[in-house]
């Protein structure tokens, strides 16, 4: 555009100007991007920074600078590890272990059975497929699990599963969202691969295990994330069916900092920080898989 209107300037200068303009524009753009990136990062981090600082502060000092708020509140007041020490003295380590075990078992078992179901929905035509998908997969997905807890509780109680691991594990295995993600991913596996294996005489189970699963690492990891977080964040259900101290889970342990007339804020926030670290450690290294799970699934179009 500048060249077309640039009747005065010689051609070379005009090109130089254009390039300079271009460089400046790109620099300005990059600056803008960084400013935006930083702003968003700040918004993501600010609550966590305050929570972390407060977890390193004696309980009576938590609001010293936080109300009314001043920037000083983003740093610990009279630095202390007492909240973390108190947490572990109350068995937080066991709760972490329990939650990790529960979430781990759920990921392995739940991942397997939901993948199988997702595969059936993706690669088979069978009678009742649509209606099964609507009623069994979609309907329970639209209702908050906590609000249907009473019949589920009576069921688990009748099975005599109270205060057992299976009461925590089994009801959380079948997961609509995971089945849906698997279905979308499996639909995109090239038919040729499946046909080839079938011609070689592989059974469907063998095909699933040898052909499909090796291709499915991204969606396996994504579904695992959902299953993991669901059990990691569980609070209401575990309190109902497995209140015994030996089975205490991490969110329940955090809530024990809430007394009748006082909250041990520093302890509650310390527990929350520790509880957040585990999923973060699982999230970050696998980022690219989450991305692949979507890019190579039917979700993309």
């Amino acid at each position, binding site marked *: 555009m500048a060249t077309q209107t640039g009747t005065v300037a010689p051609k070379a200068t005009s090109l130089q100007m254009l390039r300079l303009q271009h460089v400046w524009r790109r620099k300005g753009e990059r600056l803008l991007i960084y400013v935006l990136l930083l702003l968003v990062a700040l918004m993501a981090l600010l609550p966590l920074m305050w929570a972390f600082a407060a977890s390193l502060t*004696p*309980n*009576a*000092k*938590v*609001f*010293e600078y*936080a*109300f*009314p708020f001043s920037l000083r509140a983003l740093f610990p007041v*009279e630095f202390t590890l007492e909240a973390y020490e108190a947490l572990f003295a109350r068995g937080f380590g066991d709760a972490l272990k329990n939650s990790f075990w529960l979430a781990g078992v759920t990921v392995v078992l739940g991942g397997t059975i939901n993948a199988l179901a997702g595969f059936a929905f993706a690669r088979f035509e069978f009678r009742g497929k649509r209606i099964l998908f609507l009623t069994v997969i979609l309907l329970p997905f639209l209702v908050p699990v906590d609000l249907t*807890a*009473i019949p589920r*509780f*009576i069921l688990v*109680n009748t099975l005599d599963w*109270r205060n057992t691991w299976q009461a925590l594990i089994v009801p959380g295995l079948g997961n609509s969202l995971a089945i849906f993600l698997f279905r979308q991913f499996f639909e995109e596996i090239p038919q040729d691969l499946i046909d080839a294996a079938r011609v070689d005489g592989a059974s469907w189970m063998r095909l699933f295990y040898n052909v499909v699963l090796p291709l499915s690492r991204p969606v396996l990891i994504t579904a695992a994330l959902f299953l993991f977080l669901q059990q990691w964040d569980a609070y*209401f259900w575990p*309190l*109902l069916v497995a*209140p*015994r*101290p030996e089975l205490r889970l991490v969110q329940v342990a955090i*809530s*024990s*900092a*809430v*007394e*009748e*007339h*006082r*909250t041990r*804020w520093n302890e509650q926030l310390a527990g929350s920080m520790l509880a957040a670290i585990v999923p973060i450690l699982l999230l970050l290294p696998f980022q690219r898989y989450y991305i692949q799970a979507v890019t190579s699934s039917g979700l993309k179009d």
Partner: protein
Amino acid sequence: MHIRYIVLMTVALLLVVAPLAAQEATTITWLNCCNWPSEEVIAEFEAENPDINVEVETVDFNALFEQIQVRLGGGASDPDVLSVDVPVTAGYGLRGWLLPLDDAFSDEDRADWLPAALAAGTYNGELVSAPVSTSTQLLFINSDLFEAAGIEVPGVDDRLTYEQVADIAAQLTQDTDGDGITDQWGFSWEQTVRIYQLQPLAVGLGGQSIGDDGLTVDGVINSQAWIDGFTFYSDMFNESRVAPQDDTIGTSDLFWSGKMGMMIAGPWNINRYLREADDIDFDWTVARHPYFENGEVTTPTGSWHIGVNINSDSPDEAKRFVQWISTGAGAEAWWRRGSGDFPAQQSVLAQFQTDEEFDEGVQYFLRVAADEATVNPDPRAVSPGYLEYEQILQDAFQDIRTGADVEESLNLAVTRIESEMVKYRG
């Protein structure tokens, strides 16, 4: 020979094992509130009762009610024993969730409980929840802030009027650094929206908590006494602005951070101070619960009871535990080493007036509080629909606190509560 040998062995084995089996302890579970420390008290009970194991499940206050709804409503046999907030006794009794406990207690046991507590634990003439603790409220005072503002600090036995409290609170409310945000508040109630704590505002002016039938609220909670009492409440938050409208940071957290001059709060704050004393660096004291200049002195009361699940597999053991912890040495242990709340037994409560340990210092405040607990305590409404009543009033108080019209809010509460109470009428 061979067979006889086996029979002999079996009999011998049975003789050895039988006493062992008989000695094996029965385990009962106790669904307890609020993460109170209970290990020491349970150990004491188990030492005296080797045939019973008590397993404690403790949850926070809000979770307790859901747990009871689902577990007892679902017909589960556990928990065997449960902590019951006094005013829900009638509701649980009506639903048939609690085992009658009359045969577990002697006449002396009953006579020793505070009469109001005994009455509150009774449904349809049967004792269904045994009183464990009672409560009261005091005016907590940050003496340093009073002195800095040149206000005379009241004595421990003084009783201010609400009008005086409002006046002092206005002087204490300050924006010390001049940035336009109040950083020192005058006054608030510890639980800003709970009927437990706010009831004296209306009852002190001649109001009633609920109609005599335990169901009617129209003409009761929108009476002139309620409107006047809650207009005072509203003014503290909205007119003079001496109390923070937003309670996400709790009153007691503000007080113990040194940012609030006065609060009406429970004596459990004395225990809180003792636990955090190292980090609290201001002088404080207490005074008696305030009253309206033209009204009566009345104080909040009521606390925790304990009941037995109707479906418990071990009702006898459960009853023995309930009897132990709600009377005598058990009640004293629970107060001293458990929840720290005042015991509901008069003989135990009397120790506050006689024991030397309460003669001075912070401990003396407990003696004052224990005495205050006997000054015209006014129990909460007894109603099968208490939970609905409390929740809806909570909404109304929250609205009033944040600026809604007092009369409209109370009238709305009347409409809502009346429509919930329909199901409890014949």
